[in-house]
């Protein structure tokens, strides 16, 4: 499988990359880790005339603390996310989710920015970002702007990004110390996308849920933020009856496709099962 011909660009700054992408318009695509676009190019489902490789831009790598947030460069790889001491101690959900993405080789190349910017409903990080209340930093022709992950996804492969935009970083508010978290993913094999997956972050005070946020992966055209389900859980002790009501509310917002991973109703139910398991584990971890 040989991709179509293209011209390769390797800018060394965000400004240069944005300038190139603005000039190239629909002929240009940004290249991050390449593990979504290169397979598409090999199948000739994508035939960009120009690729703008972001790998030479040093400022797009690494994680740093900024006040009560952590800002992660878009070109930080899944392997680096999983290995980071800072992220492991402050936002352990990221490590748990990163280690369920694809396989070791893919995680060495695949990036956080690519995963969230591509708009593929099968990607894991978008729902994790919604769950965590992340903000995406975007630089385009018109300058810089910030878009909440919860407002970013419009449809399969359609996002708030416009031609010429580069998603440069992800800003995540650090969850309170002692929060519980979990990412539960059902997949047929290593390397597969989720049949359904659920991300949970919650805090517990006096035996009751004080705050809760839930993201769902690959059970609709976009990742889902299950706001209503989380609201039902707040104030509860995560008793079985309340969890059941919350799971029903989460299942109600899903609209998965029937595909090789199973019929739609099965995938909806699996989203509920993943959420139930994630809530159990998050509760056990909360202090």
């Amino acid at each position: 499988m040989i991709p179509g011909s293209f011209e390769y660009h390797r800018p060394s700054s965000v400004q240069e990359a944005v300038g190139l992408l603005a000039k190239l318009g629909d002929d240009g695509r940004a290249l991050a880790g390449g593990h979504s676009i290169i397979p598409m190019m090999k199948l000739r489902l994508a035939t960009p005339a120009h690729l703008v490789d972001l790998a030479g831009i040093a400022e797009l790598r690494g994680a740093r603390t900024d006040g009560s947030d952590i800002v992660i460069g878009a070109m930080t790889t899944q392997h680096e996310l999983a290995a980071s001491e800072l992220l492991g101690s402050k936002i352990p959900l990221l490590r748990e989710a990163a280690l369920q993405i694809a396989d070791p080789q893919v995680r060495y190349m695949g990036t956080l920015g690519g995963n969230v910017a591509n708009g593929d409903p099968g990607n894991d990080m978008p729902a994790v970002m919604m769950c965590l209340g992340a903000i995406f930093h975007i630089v385009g022709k018109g300058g810089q702007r910030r878009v909440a992950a919860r407002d970013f996804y419009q449809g399969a492969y359609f996002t708030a990004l416009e031609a010429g935009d580069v998603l440069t970083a992800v800003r995540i508010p650090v969850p309170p110390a002692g929060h519980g978290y979990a990412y539960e993913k059902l997949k047929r094999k290593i390397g597969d996308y989720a049949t359904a997956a659920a991300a949970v972050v919650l805090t517990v005070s006096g035996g009751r849920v004080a705050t809760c946020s839930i993201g769902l992966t690959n059970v609709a055209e976009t990742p889902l933020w299950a706001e209503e389900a989380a609201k039902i859980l707040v104030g509860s002790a995560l008793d079985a009856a309340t969890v059941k009501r919350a799971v029903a509310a989460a299942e109600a917002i899903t609209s998965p496709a029937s595909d090789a991973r199973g019929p739609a109703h099965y995938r909806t139910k699996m989203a509920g099962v993943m959420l139930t398991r994630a809530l159990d584990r998050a509760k056990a971890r909360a202090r």
Partner: protein
Amino acid sequence: MAKSQVAMKVNGKAVEALVEPRTLLIHFLREQLSLTGPHIGCETSHCGACTVDLDGKSVKSCTVFAVQANGADIRTIEGMANPDGTLHALQEGFREMHGLQCGFCTPGMILRAYRLLQENKNPSEEEIRYGISGNLCRCTGYQNIVKAIQFAAAKLNGVAFQEAAE
């Protein structure tokens, strides 16, 4: 389409070449450098037969363009043997523990195991299985591959290899 000049180190040797931007690293290694150890299996980033070591990362060279590897330090199975020609501990382990039958997955398995042991000198069986989860083998059922990697880890750590009871 204009070709790009690339320079990289492959198995310790400096290499310079002209490549089309669309040339995949696996094709560059096999066809331009005649390094046919890395294999083309699935071509869809699943099987891991094309795995090489690139700047301290295990990568599937069917899913990397050669231009992306400009300036990189790459190792393939051809660069695994010790400088005196004796086998690397991993190669020895695969031989001693019968870690291969047809051998198609072996170069990728060994390069992946090489990076795994660089990052974790004494992995548990579970860590080995998770660490090679991006490499498929259709012959062995993986049992002997796991043993081969355990053999290599023991040898590199200077301790005697003890095969776990079946």
